[in-house]
């Protein structure tokens, strides 16, 4: 009666297979192989989309499976981006500074080098001092650790406070939204230590790989994103398919019942909230080197709401649904807002999609929630039913 993990979850195999074919296909058509059918910038867009899929499946676990409508998971995503961005920016500036100081009559002291780097990075906000939070920026290893630790600890502390007080439902959503807003407002300040609204930039240049073309770098990050998405998918599928999945779905459907069965509900929520926050941070750390820039606007509350919209449209409570929703809506969004969609002339009014896309998205969200609560993922049910 015991079946293997894959046999119980055929969607995992399908997902990995499709992802693998997609990844290899894009690579073969990219500029790396000389086929040039997919531009480097589009490879980056696709790589970023994979990262969005990863944060979307994390969101699906916390919302679709555990019933916690977090409107703050994009903040964790952004923190992951900032954490890796600090190293990228520091190491690259250091490289440039050291190179420019070569050939000086007196070799510069480490203090002088540090001052010049500080001036370069923080000049835009009228400072040259390194804030305390940049203490580890010179170490890739420590900043990678930050990618995991900072979102994890923030989620742990925030979740502990919120769940312990039994804040649930819409009140919890409001709290997570408030946390996100507070974080964004803080980062917008020039003295936040993270360059205020300038954010961190030049993240597409990877220190130590200046000679490697962006075409190659984009493919490397594309692959890294695909691998992260695959691992994340398997990890979450494993979590939600076993007894843990039973318990967290129980919490979603009837928290009190789970409590009276003897489960400490708060610990489970905290586990899910923190784990998904960490995965969101990792997704962000892969996303922003492909985006090249991160600024506080990325963490704005609306981003986390979009995340919930993607999952709702894709179909919550199924991991592939969340991934499909994120890919579909975010790609469609860049098509509409990037001028890809032709404007519609109604004679008396011309619909410009850059303005009207949000209206269309909002409308689709309402329609999906009202008429297709299972989202795009629900279409697969129809397909399976037809076969059997």
């Amino acid at each position: 009666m015991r079946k293997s993990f894959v046999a119980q979850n055929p969607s995992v195999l399908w997902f990995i297979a499709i992802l693998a074919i997609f990844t290899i296909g894009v690579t073969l058509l990219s500029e790396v192989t000389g086929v040039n059918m997919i531009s480097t910038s589009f490879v980056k867009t696709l790589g970023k989309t994979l990262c969005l899929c990863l944060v979307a499946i994390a969101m699906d676990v916390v919302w679709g499976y555990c019933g916690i409508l977090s409107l703050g998971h994009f903040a964790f995503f952004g923190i992951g981006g900032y954490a890796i961005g600090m190293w990228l920016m520091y190491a690259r500036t250091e490289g440039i500074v050291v190179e420019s100081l070569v050939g000086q009559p007196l070799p510069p002291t480490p203090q002088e080098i540090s001052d010049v780097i500080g001036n370069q990075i923080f000049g835009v906000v009228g400072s040259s001092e390194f804030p305390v939070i940049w203490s580890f920026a010179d170490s890739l290893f420590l900043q990678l650790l930050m990618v995991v630790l900072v979102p994890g600890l923030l989620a742990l502390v925030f979740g502990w406070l919120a769940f312990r007080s039994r804040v649930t439902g819409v009140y919890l959503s409001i709290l997570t939204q408030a946390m996100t807003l507070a974080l964004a407002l803080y980062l917008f300040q020039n003295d936040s230590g993270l360059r205020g609204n300038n954010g961190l930039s030049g993240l597409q240049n990877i220190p130590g790989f200046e000679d490697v073309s962006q075409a190659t770098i984009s493919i490397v990050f594309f692959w890294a994103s695909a691998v992260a998405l695959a691992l994340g998918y398997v990890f979450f599928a494993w979590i939600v398919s076993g007894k843990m999945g039973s318990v967290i779905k129980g919490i979603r459907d009837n928290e009190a019942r789970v409590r009276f069965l003897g489960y400490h509900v708060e610990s489970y929520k905290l586990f899910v909230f923190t784990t998904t926050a960490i995965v969101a941070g990792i997704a962000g750390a892969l996303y922003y080197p492909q985006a090249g820039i991160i600024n506080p606007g990325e963490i704005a509350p609306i981003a986390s709401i979009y995340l919930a919209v993607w999952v709702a449209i894709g179909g919550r409570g199924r991991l592939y649904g969340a991934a499909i929703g994120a890919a579909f809506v975010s790609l469609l969004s860049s098509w509409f807002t990037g001028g890809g969609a032709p404007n519609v002339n109604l004679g008396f009014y011309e619909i410009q999609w850059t303005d009207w896309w949000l209206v269309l998205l909002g409308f689709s969200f309402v329609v999906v929630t009202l008429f297709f609560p299972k989202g795009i993922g629900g279409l697969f049910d129809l397909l399976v039913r037809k076969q059997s």
Partner: protein
Amino acid sequence: MSMLLEVSGVCVTFDGFRAINNLSINFAKAELRAIIGPNGAGKTTFMDIVTGKTKPDEGKVIWGDQNMSLLGMSESEIAKEGIGRKFQKPTVFEAQTVRQNLAMALRNPRSPFSVLMHKKTQANASRIESVADQIGLLDSLTRVAGELSHGQKQWLEIGMLLAQEPRLMLVDEPAAGMTPEEREKTTSILREAAKTCAVVVVEHDMEFVRRLDCKVTVLHEGSVLAEGSLDHVTSDQTVIDVYLGRAHA
């Protein structure tokens, strides 16, 4: 005789309304007990106090051989101590199968880590099957709980209590909305369970209580009005006045 649960001098006030007023009630280790009383007598509040959902203003709730106080313990800690509770409205996890419902209730380590690392074993499977057999759902293990009939959901919830292997089961209106045949079966499940643990049934329906054939406690306005056999309490004049008389009026 040492008691399993001793509730003494408990008072609870909600916004000035005394839901429980100096309530004292004891339960022995393996007994079947029915608690009856009119609406608002404090039956459900009494369960809330014992299971940790409501904190009383004063009084003591003492549990087990170690005379442990249940006040100040969380719901999940109390449940792990061996107090199971069935709600008035059947509450099973409708999106999951009968087997998954029972597996979740099965007495096993409850920490997130041990649940994450949980492996299905033959021993657990046979425990689930024996409980399912007891509640008559052995053929429905793979069915989604949401598809079950009202009566079957009630049994499943009782089965989840049994799977916890509790020492005290608090059962709120198990026969509500059941057909006579279903009631009969519910009675036998509860009587069977009462052989190994204390079973406390809160019920409105006198006919069902009569069938349980056990000691009865009558609650009224948050305290015990009478206690004894059903015939004893139903012949008690004060009980007739406040409860039965009103029902028959």
